[in-house]
C-alpha cells in the first residue's frame, strides 16, 4: 500500500524552510490569534503555504499583538483550510479557496478591521460537541511540548506521581467507567488492574498504544496524533506508572507519515523535558517509549497480531487466553489500549473519575470521537457525549444530506460493523445500543450513505476488504471470506437464486462462530446487518435481477437451478 507513506526522517534538523514554519508569537499577550489547522486534511488543501502567507501579511501590517499559530485538527475537514480565531469566536472556512473566505477578510479581522468568518457559538457543528479528547486539538501547537505544558499538559502525570499511588490511579480509572475506545469496549480500569496484578516478566511489563487505525472511513487516531501527540504520551506514562511498566510502544500505521513524524518529535521533546525516559519527573520511575511502524496489514489492529508485529514477525493473531494482560510482548504482561483511550486519561486523572463519569450514559461513560464522512454536508472529526442520538449527529452536527438526497444508512464500526437504517436514527450512540442494532461502536468511523448506495454492494465492498486483509492463518476466515465474497458477487450481478442467499447466511453464521480472531468473527457483520434491514435490496437482485440503487451491473444471466455455489467464473 503506498508510496504515500515515505516516512520522513525522524528528526529533521531545523532547516530554513522549517524555521519559516515557526509560529508568529507576539511579545505580550495576543489580542487575537489565528489558529491555522495543520492536520492532514487542511494540509492537503494547502494550509502550510497559507500559514506562511498569513504570517507575512500580519508582519507586514505592523500589528504587534497578533499571533499566528500552527494547531491540530479543527474538526470540519470538509471546509478546509480552517483557521480559528478563538478570542473573536470566529471560524474562517475554505480560506483562500474558490467560494470560501478570502485571506484579506481574515487579515482584516486579526488587525482590527471588521470581524469576518463565521460566528462559532451558533453553529450546531461546533456547539453540540463536547471536547475531552480533542480539547487541546485546535489549541496547542502539535510540535511544541512547551505549548502543551503551558496549556496544563503533564499536570495529570505530575498529580498521579506525586499525590497518588498506582492503585489509586487505577481506582480513578475504574470509577470513571472508561471503556476501550478501540472497538470492543472492555472496561479500561479492569484491564489496568489485571496488568498491575500480574507478576512482571523477565523484561518487566509493557504499555502498548494501538495506533493501527485500520477501519476504512476512520481517522480519529490519526487526527489525535497529529493534533496533540503529547496527550497520548501523557496517558501512556500515567498507565505505565499505574501498572508498573517501564517500556512502551506506539504501533502506528505507515499510512500516517505526519502522525508518525509528530509523535516521534513529541517523544524526543518529552524525553528532553523529563516527562518520559529514565527518570520521569526526576524520580526513579523509568518509562521509555518507542514508535513501531506498521506496514499495511489491517489485522494488526487485533491485539495479538499487533504484538506479533511489534516483535518483528508476520502479524497473525493467536488464540486467547492467555491474554496480553498476563502474557504479551515477549511473554511479559502487556497493557494495550487504543490512542483515544490513552488520550482520555490525563483529563480523567486531573478532574477525577466521577467527573468523567458524569458525561455519557449509564454504561457508556465519557465522550466518543467520530470521523463523520460520506453523504453528509459537514464531514470531519467530531466529539460528542455518549448517548447522543444518531439523528442529532447526522442531521444537527453533520448538517444532513445534500439537497435532494435521501438518507439510507449510517455505517459504523468498519468491516466488523453494520449499517443502521433510517427507522433507528433516534437510537442513542453507546456500546450496548449499537450492538443490539447489529453494529458495533468500533473505533469511530461513521459513514453516511444515501439512496445512491446499494447495500448489497456495500456488503460486498466490506467482504472484499476482509478477504484481502485476512491473514490466512485460520481456515474459516481465509476461505470463508473468499466464498462469501463470491456469493455476494453472484447476488450483485443478478446470477443468484434463493439457494445462494441461504448458503450465504449459513456460511456467515459459521465463519462468525469459528474464526480465530475478531477479523474473521466480525467479517460477516456487514452481511448480517444489511440482510436485517435491507433484505428487500437482496431480493430485488435475486428475484427481479434489478439493483434498486443502480450501482450493480446486472449481467442478466438467469440463476441456474443448481444447489452448488457454482463457478467463480473469473471473479477471483
Amino acid at each position, binding site marked *: 500500500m503506498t508510496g504515500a507513506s515515505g516516512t520522513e526522517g525522524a528528526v529533521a534538523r531545523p532547516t530554513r524552510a522549517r524555521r519559516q514554519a515557526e509560529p508568529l508569537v507576539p511579545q505580550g499577550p495576543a489580542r487575537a490569534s489565528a489558529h491555522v489547522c495543520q492536520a492532514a486534511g487542511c494540509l492537503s488543501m494547502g494550509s502550510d503555504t497559507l500559514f506562511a502567507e498569513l504570517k507575512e501579511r500580519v508582519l507586514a501590517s505592523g500589528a504587534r499583538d497578533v499571533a499566528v499559530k500552527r494547531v491540530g485538527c479543527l474538526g470540519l475537514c470538509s471546509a478546509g483550510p480552517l483557521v480559528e480565531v478563538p478570542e473573536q469566536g470566529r471560524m474562517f472556512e475554505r480560506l483562500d479557496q474558490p467560494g470560501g473566505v478570502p485571506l484579506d477578510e481574515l487579515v482584516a479581522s486579526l488587525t482590527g478591521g471588521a470581524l469576518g468568518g463565521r460566528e462559532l457559538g451558533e453553529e450546531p457543528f461546533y456547539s453540540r460537541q463536547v471536547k475531552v479528547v480533542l480539547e487541546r486539538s485546535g489549541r496547542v501547537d502539535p510540535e511544541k511540548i512547551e505549548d502543551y505544558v503551558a496549556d496544563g499538559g503533564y499536570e495529570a502525570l505530575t498529580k498521579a506521581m506525586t499525590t497518588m499511588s498506582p492503585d489509586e490511579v487505577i481506582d480513578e480509572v475504574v470509577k470513571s467507567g472508561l471503556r476501550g475506545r478501540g472497538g470492543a469496549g472492555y472496561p479500561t480500569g479492569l484491564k489496568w488492574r489485571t496488568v498491575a496484578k500480574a507478576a512482571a516478566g523477565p523484561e518487566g511489563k509493557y504499555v502498548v498504544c494501538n495506533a493501527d487505525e485500520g477501519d476504512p472511513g476512520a481517522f480519529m487516531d490519526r487526527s489525535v496524533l497529529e493534533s496533540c501527540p503529547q496527550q497520548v504520551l501523557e496517558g501512556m506514562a500515567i498507565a505505565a506508572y499505574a501498572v508498573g511498566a517501564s517500556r512502551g510502544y506506539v504501533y502506528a500505521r505507515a499510512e500516517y507519515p505526519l502522525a508518525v513524524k509528530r509523535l516521534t518529535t513529541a517523544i524526543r521533546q518529552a524525553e528532553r523535558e523529563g516527562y518520559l525516559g529514565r527518570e520521569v519527573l526526576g524520580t526513579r520511575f523509568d518509562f521509555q517509549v518507542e514508535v513501531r511502524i506498521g506496514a499495511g496489514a489491517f489485522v494488526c489492529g487485533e491485539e495479538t497480531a499487533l504484538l506479533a508485529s511489534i516483535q518483528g514477525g508476520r502479524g497473525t493473531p493467536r488464540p486467547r487466553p492467555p491474554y496480553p494482560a498476563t502474557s504479551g510482548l515477549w511473554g511479559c504482561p502487556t497493557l494495550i489500549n487504543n490512542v483515544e483511550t490513552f488520550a482520555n486519561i490525563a483529563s480523567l486523572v486531573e478532574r477525577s473519575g466521577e467527573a468523567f463519569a458524569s458525561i455519557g450514559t449509564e454504561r457508556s461513560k465519557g465522550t466518543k470521537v467520530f470521523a463523520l464522512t460520506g453523504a453528509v454536508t459537514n464531514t470531519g472529526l467530531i466529539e460528542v457525549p455518549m448517548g447522543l442520538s444518531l439523528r442529532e449527529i447526522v442531521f444537527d452536527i453533520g448538517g444532513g444530506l445534500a439537497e435532494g438526497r435521501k438518507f439510507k444508512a449510517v455505517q459504523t464500526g468498519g468491516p466488523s460493523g453494520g449499517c443502521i437504517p433510517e427507522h433507528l436514527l433516534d437510537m442513542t450512540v453507546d456500546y450496548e445500543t449499537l450492538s443490539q442494532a447489529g453494529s458495533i461502536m468500533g473505533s469511530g468511523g461513521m459513514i453516511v450513505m444515501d439512496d445512491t448506495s446499494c447495500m448489497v454492494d456495500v456488503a460486498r465492498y466490506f467482504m472484499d476488504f476482509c478477504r484481502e486483509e485476512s491473514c490466512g492463518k*485460520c481456515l474459516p476466515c*481465509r476461505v470463508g471470506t*473468499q466464498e462469501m465474497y463470491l456469493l455476494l458477487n453472484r447476488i450483485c450481478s443478478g446470477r443468484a437464486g434463493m439457494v445462494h442467499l441461504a448458503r450465504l447466511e449459513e456460511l456467515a453464521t459459521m465463519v462468525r462462530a*469459528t474464526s480465530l480472531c475478531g477479523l474473521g468473527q466480525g467479517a460477516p457483520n456487514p452481511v448480517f446487518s444489511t440482510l436485517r434491514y435491507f433484505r428487500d435490496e437482496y431480493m430485488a437482485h435475486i428475484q427481479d435481477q434489478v439493483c434498486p440503487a443502480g450501482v450493480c451491473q446486472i449481467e442478466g444471466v438467469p440463476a441456474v437451478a443448481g444447489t452448488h455455489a457454482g463457478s467463480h467464473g473469473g471473479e477471483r
Partner: protein
Amino acid sequence: MSEVRTLVIDGRDVAANSDQTLLSVARENGIAIPTLCHLEGLTDIGACRLCMVELEGSKKLLPACVTQVQEGMRVVTSSERLLEYRRRVIEMFFLERNHVCAVCVANNSCELQSAARALSLTHFELAPLHPDVAVDATHERFVLDQNRCILCGRCVRVCDEIEGAHVWDIRGRGANARLVSDMGTPWGESTTCTSCGKCVQVCPTGALFEKGRSVAEPKARRPYVPYLVGHHRRA
C-alpha cells in the same frame, strides 16, 4: 505443579491434570475430536478450527487443542451444530486448493480425506477456488505439491521446533498464503534444508511426499511421527 481437575465431556465425568488441554483429555478418554493442524509434540496454533467444542454457559466455541481444562467445565464435543461446522471446514479445505483424491499420492492415507469420510461429507456446496498453483519437484528426494497444501503449518513447526532449520514459512496472506522454502526459492536450491524429511513425515495430505511414490501407494510414514516429535517434547 499440576493439580487434578474434574470436568464433564459429552456427559461423562473425567479427571485431568490442570496443565492438560481439552483435546488431550478427550482423547485419553476415547472421545474423538477431529484435528488437522494439531500434532502431538508440536506447539498448537489453533488454526484449522476443526476441534471447536461447546462449553456450557458460554456462547463462544473453544478450540480444544489450545484450551486448558478448568474445574467443573461441561463440554460438548459433537453437537449437530459442531458437526455441521466441521463439515464446512473440511469442505472449504477441499475447495481452496485442487484436491483430486483419485490421483493423489496420499489417497487412502490422507487425514483430510479420512476426516471427510468420518464426517459423512458427500459433496460440496460452495464454489471451488481452483487456484493455479505449482508443484516443486526440485529437491532430489521430495516433492512439494501446492495443490494439496492445507496450510496447517505442521511442516513449518516441525522444521523450526524439532529440526531447528526453519526452512519453511508462509508467504503472503489470506487466499494468497503459500508454503515457501527460504526466499521462495525452489526447495532443491534451499541453503537451509537438511533433507531430514521430517516435514514430509508430518504432512497430513499429499502436499509433501517422497519421490518415487505413486497414486494410492500409501505414504507409509505415520509410525515414525511419535518418535520424531513426541519424545522430544516430553523429555
